[in-house]
């Protein structure tokens, strides 16, 4: 990363692994469970959060010195909600099909705790550029987990990836279905998302023992 100083690139790279918002900070779990039944939905949600978190962090960082601390959470919420509504309206006017795809995601972004978490923990105390990088980093860290979970849930639950039947046709019994393989419908339900996230956490912590907290 020649463009960024070491400290700045850490802002982007840290949340990807050792300080991942989902697996380490355990934030944003609700949306990770709700929308990862399909890979495409995971990707769309990741991009939406990337946009809102990057922009929101900059806005909060710019006004950080004039926000009254007593109502800062309300201010943060207002900023996210306003950004999300504007994005939604612009999409509806200029990219209607995409806005239909997004449907519930847009609403879910407002309640995503990662966004409030980064506003509170980072943007309130740092400049706009660093806040922007932090937002992008965290959104990417969130997105990676979403995409991993979405990949496994769609593959094992529906036998498809991005809607393509990669394992063959379950009704005509082609591909792996010819050998008696069945889709696991349980993968489509939220509990399996939690279990997949749990497995990722397990793998991550067994590879890097420093991440294990002692209680």
């Amino acid at each position, binding site marked *: 990363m020649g463009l960024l100083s070491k400290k700045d690139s850490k802002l982007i790279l840290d949340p990807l692994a050792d300080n991942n918002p989902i697996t380490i900070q355990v934030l944003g779990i609700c949306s990770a469970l*709700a*929308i*990862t*039944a*399909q890979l495409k*939905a995971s990707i769309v949600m990741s991009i939406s959060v990337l946009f809102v978190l990057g922009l929101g962090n900059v806005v909060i960082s710019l006004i950080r*010195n*004039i*926000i*009254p*601390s*007593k*109502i800062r959470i*309300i*201010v943060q919420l*207002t900023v996210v909600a*306003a950004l999300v*509504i*504007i994005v939604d*309206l*612009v999409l*509806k*006017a*200029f990219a*209607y099909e995409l806005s239909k795809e997004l*449907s*519930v*995601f847009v*609403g879910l972004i407002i309640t995503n705790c990662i966004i409030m978490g980064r506003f509170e923990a980072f943007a309130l105390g740092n400049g706009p550029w660093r806040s922007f990088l932090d937002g992008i980093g965290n959104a990417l860290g969130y997105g990676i987990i979403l995409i991993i979970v979405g990949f496994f*849930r*769609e593959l094992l639950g*529906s036998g498809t990836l991005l*809607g393509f*039947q990669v394992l063959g046709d379950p*009704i005509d019994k082609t591909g792996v279905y010819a050998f008696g393989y069945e889709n696991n*419908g349980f993968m*489509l*339900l939220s509990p399996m998302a939690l279990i997949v996230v749990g497995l990722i956490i397990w793998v991550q912590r067994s590879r890097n023992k420093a991440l294990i907290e002692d209680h």
Partner: protein
Amino acid sequence: MEKRTEKNSYTVFFAIIMVVIVGALLAFTASALKERIAENKRIEKQQNILYAMGVNENEGNKANFVSKDKVGESFKKYITNQFVIQQGNESPDDQAYLIDIKKEQESAKNGNVRRLPLFIGEKDEKKFYIAPIRGKGLWDAIWAYIAMDENMVVQGAYFDHKGETPGLGANIKERFFMDDFIGEHLMSNGTFKGITVSKSNGDPKNDDKTDNEVDAIAGATITGDGVTAMIRNELKLYVPYFKNLKN
């Protein structure tokens, strides 16, 4: 010393200014984009109606509408008649496709007589009767355009939803679900039965078209039940029209 931003008066002042700025910004954006959004919705309705009667650009297992720039022309070409049924009387209305079903349902609840829009389409010398219907899914509204022949046998369907779960209930707008309805009978031995989205159908390839059942989507029970209820409650209202048609 107390910081300036800690004062109560400052907090109130800040909140007021923030609300005014954000409110103005949102109101401005909404009104600036209002017309474009309304136009998009109008085009979408035309695309939905055409989709139901089989005028679409489907590729593989993906549902594609006729393109935006062609839709106005196709709509004029294929939709030959639009009218509103009210208490058994039909009155022609070439804006019938813009009728808000939600408002009609609400006004019917208040004791008014419901206006039922119906669109007649013609393609390859075949007549389609397309009805817009609306119901409830798991999280929010679901709606559909059902194209039928004069015997109330489904010729095509387009389902859509406002906020069903992606990957589960949201799959009602996927072809594998919508195409199952094609050829399915709404009537059974002369009485209206509707189409049940059934978990115990035992007919995944949907070979039996007269069982009034299609295969449900795994993990989307409530959305499926919503589709069943929507079809039953809404299309039932059109039965007298179809009965009349035969006499």
